[in-house]
């Protein structure tokens, strides 16, 4: 619990610094530190403040230019859900030119400007590689999965170190899972809850990089869902079944029933509550979702063998399972979203790839699959 207080206190200090009137150099240092953590919105605000003071203008413009270069050309999928933002590209060049103008002898600004101009002229720019220091801190934290004898305080230190280096929620969820596996349920719960608010803030700080409102909303929901599922799973382990049910069902709503681990956890809970029909439903939901690791799928299938509705039905367990999964997939198909449904397809100003008007007359009178996509 003491550790958690320390984390909260650290956040309070950052917030206090943010609201205080500080000299330009402090704003510059703060902006750089915030950007190291990938808290873009706050970093930009601090650097813009520092750019107004002529003592720090060159450094601040350069830092802003580098930040915008990253957002414009380099951030695609470096973190889940983030995409390149072409709207920042011109701003990157403007800031870096301003840095060079403020201090023509500043070699690092000249170099950053040349790099950005190179990106602007390039056919394609590869995303930035993952930062090695973050990967190392992730690996250090993950390693505690297989070190059951390590003291809990070490795990919390590893979490704190990683969380300080980059402000995304991933280490909180990883640490909460490790602590659940070690029976440290209360600590796991407080860390998962902390992860939910860290997730909200991180998305908010990088909102424009999600490109579409549905993508940022999806990311908000995923962070909260992951936290609720971990809290519910920890409560389940503590045999606090009513609390576990509330949190696991919250995660189910947020993930729209499409998260394998959550459906599996709900199945385990229902089984412990002696509700075989509900357990069966959740295990089947889980198995009808693609992409879960094989060991988890096996556990869900194993749990189902004792729960078949009519054990004497023809074809045995395999046939029953296949029929149930097929039925669930069909239900998914039928529950397609409503909005433009049953209305005429609106007229769209489509163009060809090279920008000429698109002739869609050939589509008239046909059944049409119309797929909107983006390459990012």
């Amino acid at each position, binding site marked *: 619990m003491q550790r958690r207080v320390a984390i909260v206190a650290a956040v309070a200090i950052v917030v206090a610094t943010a609201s205080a009137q500080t000299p330009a150099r402090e704003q510059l240092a703060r902006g750089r530190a915030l950007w190291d953590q990938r808290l873009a919105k706050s970093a930009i605000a601090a650097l813009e403040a520092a750019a107004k003071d002529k003592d720090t203008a060159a450094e601040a413009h350069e830092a802003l230019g580098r930040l915008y270069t990253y957002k414009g050309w380099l951030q695609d999928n470096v973190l889940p859900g983030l995409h390149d933002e072409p709207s920042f590209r011109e701003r990157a060049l403007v800031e870096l030119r301003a840095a060079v103008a403020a201090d023509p002898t500043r070699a690092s600004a000249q170099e950053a400007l040349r790099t950005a101009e190179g990106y602007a002229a390039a*056919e394609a720019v590869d995303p930035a590689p993952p930062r090695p220091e973050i990967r190392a801190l992730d690996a250090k934290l993950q390693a505690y999965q297989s070190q059951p004898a390590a003291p809990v305080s070490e795990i919390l230190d590893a979490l704190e170190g990683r969380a300080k280096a980059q402000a995304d929620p991933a280490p909180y969820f990883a640490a909460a899972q490790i602590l659940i596996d070690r029976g440290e349920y209360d600590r796991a719960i407080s860390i998962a809850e902390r992860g939910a608010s860290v997730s909200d803030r991180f998305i908010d700080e990088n909102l424009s990089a999600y490109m579409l409102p549905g993508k940022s909303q999806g990311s908000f929901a995923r962070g909260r869902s992951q936290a609720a599922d971990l809290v519910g799973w920890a409560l389940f382990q503590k045999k606090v079944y009513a609390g576990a049910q509330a949190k696991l069902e919250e995660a189910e709503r947020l993930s729209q029933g499409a998260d394998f681990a959550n459906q599996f956890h709900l199945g385990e809970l229902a089984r412990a509550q002696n509700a075989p029909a509900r357990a069966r439903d959740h295990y089947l939901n889980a198995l009808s979702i693609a992409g879960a690791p094989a060991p988890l799928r096996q556990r869900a299938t194993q749990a189902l063998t004792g729960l078949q509705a009519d054990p004497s039905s023809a074809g045995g367990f395999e046939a029953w399972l296949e029929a149930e999964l097929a039925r669930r997939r069909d239900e998914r198909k039928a529950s397609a979203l409503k909005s433009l449904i049953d209305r005429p397809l609106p007229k769209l100003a489509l163009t060809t*790839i090279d920008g000429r008007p698109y002739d869609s007359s050939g589509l008239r009178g046909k059944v049409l699959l119309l797929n909107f996509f983006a390459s990012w």
Partner: protein
Amino acid sequence: MPHLKTSYAKYQSDPRVAFLLVSIDEDSKRLQRYLNEMKFPFPVARLSSEQAQQVMGIDNTPSTFYVGSDGIVRYMVVGGESHGDSPARVGWYIDQLKTGK
């Protein structure tokens, strides 16, 4: 997107069915590179992200609409596929519309 290619193979020679991909990319170079990589066998058009959001209500990609031969939108599927049988799903929607359901 590979599941669309798989699905298209089934309807390629069906004169009653058409596929159209619409890119909402802002970055032309990136789009061109993506298309070179994917080599889609069906036509690809472009629409501004603003219009896609305003007119079609798109707030996520991919978003797929299934339109009947009468020009009425019948199904809409938003986001990635969390359930495992994508080509079968695509085929199901199209076959529903072909039989006039």
